[in-house]
C-alpha cells in the first residue's frame, strides 16, 4: 500500500505525464465550466446552497435520531437494516446475505463506499462473481484499475485505451469499438445479459430519507435503476452520514448535487426506493417488478468518530466531485496520485480522518489552501480549515519532518543572538548578490534549487531593514 513518502513521487510522476495532463485538463475544464454555466442561470442557487448546508448541519448534529427514524421507517416498509461498525463488518454482512440466498452472480452500480471497504474482493473470495455496471466502473474493473474521479472514474483513460481493453478483455470486435457510440452500445448489450443472470443487485445510496425510510440513487446511465429492479435481492451500502430528514429536503439536495457534479439541473435518474416490491396474494394488487428483498447496510467505518469533533463538517459532503475539478492540485496530478479511494480536497480530509494520519499524513499537505474547494462546494464545507487542523494534528502526533525541526532550531539559535543574526543576514545578502541578475536569482545551489526550478527567488534589498531603521531614526 501507499507509503507517506510515495505521495510526492506519485504526484511528481503524474505532473510530468503530459498525456495525463491533457486528459485531466479536458475533464476538469469541461466539468468546471458546466457547473458554472448551470449556476449562472439559477438565480436562487446561492440561497439553495445555504439551505442545503443547513439541512446537512442539522442532520449531522442529530444523526442518532435521524438514523433511528430512518431504520424504523425502512423496516415498516419491509426492508432490512444492518449496522456495520467497520468495513470488514460490512463486507461480511453482504457476503452472508449472498451466501444465505445462494447468490452466484451479482451486478453492481457505482458505490464509493464499496470501494472504501473493498467489497468486491470480499465477495469474490466467497465465490460470488461481481460485475460493475456503470460504464466507467466496468472499464475500471476490466482493466484491474482504480477510479480516478468520484463521478467520472476513467478520465485518465483515452478512447483508444478503452477500445483495446474491450477487445482484449471483453471480446469486442473491431466494429464494436469503431467509435464511442459503438463502444457504449457494446457495453449496453454485454451488461444486459449480466443484469438478467444476476441473483443480487448491489448499490450505494446517495441519500437516505429519515421520514420515509427511502434511499435515493442518482445516475445518468440507468444502471442504478436496473441494479435495483431486475435482481431478486437488492443490497444497498450507505455511509451513516447520508441522511436527509424528508422528501422535500431530498429535493433540495438533488438540485445542488446535479448542478455541482455535471451542471445538469437534475441528473437523468433520481431513483427513490421505499422498501422492496409490494406484493399481496392478488397479482392485480401487487407490483409487477422490483426486488423481493431490500437490505440497507449502514456503514460507519470511522465516521461516527468524527461526530462532535473539528472534522465533523466533512460529513456534510454529498460526493459531487466539484472540489476535485476546481482544485489546482487535483488538476495537476489527477486522482491516482492521492493513493486513496477519495481523491482531491475532500479526500485529503476524509481519508486521513477515517483511516488516520499514519499512511495518509501527506494528503493534507496536497493543497495550496487557495479555497477554490470551499468556493464551489454545494454545502460550503470549509475544507481549508480542516486541512490546517489535520496538518496541526500531524505535527502533534507524528512530529514535523527532521529538516523543519533542525531548520527551525537553527533559525531560533540565530534569531535570538543579535550579532549572529546580523552576520547571517549580511552573509546571505552577499551570497545572493553574487547570484542575482537584475534583482532576481534564477538558480539557487544545492537543496535550495528546488525553489528555483519552478520560480525565481528575489535578491535581498540593497540595505537591510535594520540599516534603514537606523538611518531613519537618525533623520528624525
Amino acid at each position, binding site marked *: 500500500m501507499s507509503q507517506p513518502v510515495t505521495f510526492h513521487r506519485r504526484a511528481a510522476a503524474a505532473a510530468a505525464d503530459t498525456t495525463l495532463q491533457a*486528459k485531466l485538463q*479536458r475533464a476538469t475544464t469541461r466539468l468546471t465550466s458546466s457547473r458554472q454555466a448551470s449556476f449562472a442561470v439559477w438565480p*436562487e442557487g446561492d440561497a439553495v446552497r*445555504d439551505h442545503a448546508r443547513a*439541512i446537512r448541519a*442539522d442532520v*449531522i*448534529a*442529530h444523526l*442518532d435520531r435521524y*438514523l*433511528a427514524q430512518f*431504520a*424504523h421507517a425502512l*423496516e415498516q416498509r419491509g426492508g432490512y*437494516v*444492518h*449496522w456495520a461498525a467497520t468495513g470488514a463488518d460490512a463486507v461480511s454482512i453482504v457476503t452472508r446475505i449472498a451466501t444465505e440466498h445462494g447468490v452466484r452472480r451479482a451486478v453492481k452500480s457505482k458505490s464509493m463506499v464499496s470501494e472504501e471497504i473493498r467489497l468486491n474482493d470480499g465477495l469474490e473470495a466467497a465465490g460470488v462473481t461481481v460485475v460493475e455496471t*456503470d*460504464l466507467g466502473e466496468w*472499464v475500471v474493473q476490466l482493466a484491474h484499475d482504480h477510479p480516478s474521479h468520484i463521478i467520472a472514474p476513467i478520465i485518465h483513460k483515452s*478512447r483508444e485505451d478503452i477500445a483495446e481493453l474491450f477487445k482484449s478483455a471483453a471480446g469486442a470486435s473491431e466494429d464494436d469499438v469503431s467509435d*464511442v457510440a459503438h463502444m*457504449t*452500445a457494446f457495453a*449496453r448489450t454485454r451488461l444486459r445479459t449480466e443484469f438478467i443472470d444476476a441473483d443480487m443487485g448491489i448499490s450505494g445510496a446517495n441519500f437516505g430519507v429519515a421520514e*420515509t425510510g427511502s434511499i435515493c440513487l442518482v445516475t445518468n*446511465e*440507468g*444502471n442504478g*435503476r*436496473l441494479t435495483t*429492479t431486475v435482481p*431478486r435481492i437488492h443490497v444497498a451500502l450507505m455511509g451513516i452520514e447520508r441522511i436527509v430528514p424528508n*422528501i422535500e*429536503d431530498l*429535493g433540495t439536495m*438533488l438540485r445542488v448535487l446535479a448542478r455541482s457534479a455535471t451542471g445538469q*439541473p*437534475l441528473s*437523468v*435518474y*433520481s431513483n*427513490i*426506493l*421505499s422498501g422492496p416490491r*409490494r406484493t399481496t396474494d392478488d397479482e*392485480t394488487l*401487487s*407490483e*409487477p*417488478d*422490483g426486488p423481493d428483498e431490500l437490505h440497507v447496510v449502514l456503514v460507519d467505518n470511522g465516521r*461516527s468518530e468524527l*461526530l*462532535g*469533533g473539528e472534522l*465533523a*463538517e466533512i460529513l456534510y459532503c454529498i460526493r459531487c466531485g466539484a472540489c476535485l475539478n476546481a482544485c489546482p492540485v487535483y488538476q495537476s496530478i489527477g486522482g491516482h496520485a492521492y493513493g486513496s479511494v477519495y481523491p482531491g480536497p475532500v479526500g485529503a480530509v476524509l481519508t486521513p480522518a477515517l483511516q488516520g494520519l499514519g499512511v495518509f499524513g501527506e494528503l493534507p499537505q496536497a493543497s495550496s489552501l487557495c479555497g477554490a474547494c470551499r468556493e464551489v462546494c454545494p454545502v460550503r464545507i*470549509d475544507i481549508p480549515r480542516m486541512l490546517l487542523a489535520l496538518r496541526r494534528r500531524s505535527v502533534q502526533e507524528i512530529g514535523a519532518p527532521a529538516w523543519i525541526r533542525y531548520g527551525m532550531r537553527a533559525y531560533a539559535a540565530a534569531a535570538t543572538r543579535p550579532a549572529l543574526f546580523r552576520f547571517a543576514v549580511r552573509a546571505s545578502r552577499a551570497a545572493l548578490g553574487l547570484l542575482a541578475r537584475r534583482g532576481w536569482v534564477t538558480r539557487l545551489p544545492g537543496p535550495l534549487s528546488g525553489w528555483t526550478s519552478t520560480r525565481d527567488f528575489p535578491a535581498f534589498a540593497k540595505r537591510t531593514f535594520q540599516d534603514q531603521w537606523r538611518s531613519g531614526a537618525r533623520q528624525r
Partner: protein
Amino acid sequence: MSIDEAILRQLQARIARGAGTHAPHGHQAAAPTSVVITPPRPRAASADPVSPFTTAWESLGGVVHHAQSAADAISIVAAICRSAGAEQTLSWREPDLGVPGIVDGLRRLGIESDYGWLPADRSERAARLAELERIKVGVTGASGAIGESGTVVLVSGPGRPRLASLLPPIHVTLLHVSRMHASLPDFLAAEPTIADGGSNLVLITGPSRTADIEMTLTRGVHGPGHVHAVLVHSA
C-alpha cells in the same frame, strides 16, 4: 434488527462532546433540538410550465408531442411504435395511463400491451426478462412533471412496472398538462406524500446518457436513448 440502542447512545455521546464548544464555522449545533429550516422558493415561478418543460426536455434530446384528445394520444403512440417496427409495448395498465381506450385502440392498430409481470422464481424470472428485453417501446403515465429541469415523475405500483421506463430503447410517457409544476420544490410541496405511492419513485430527466469515455456524450447506455413526452391537454 433495528439499530442497537447502545450504538445510538454512543453516537449521541460523540455528538454531545462537540456541543457547547466554540464552533467558529457554525457547523456544530448549539441547541439539542432541530432547527426550523425554510426552503427558498423560486423567485418568479412561470405561470406556464409547459414551455420551459418543452425547452428543457428537447434540449436533452427528448421529443414533445401534443394530444388534444384520447384518440390523438393513441395515434401518437401508435406512430412511434410503427416507426420503431414495434408490435408490442411494455406498458402500464390503462387506468394509470390516463388515456381511456388506449389498450383497445392500440390493439386495433396491431399493437399488443405486455404488463411486465416478473415471477420470483430464479429461472422463470431470467426467461421472462429475456422476453421483455426484446420489446422496443415502453409506455407509462406520469404522476407529474417539472418545467425547470425537463423532468417527468413516475411512481411504481400495481399495473405500473418500473421496467416500462427502463428496459426498452424507446420510452413514451403520457402526461396530463394539469400535472406540470414549475420546479422540483413546487412539485414536492404539491405532492408531499408522493413517495408513499409505490416502492419506486423516479424522476426522469431526459434520455439515459453517459460521458464516461473522453467526456463524449452518448445516449441510451443502459436506459432508453429515445424519450417521448406526450402532453395530453384534454380532461
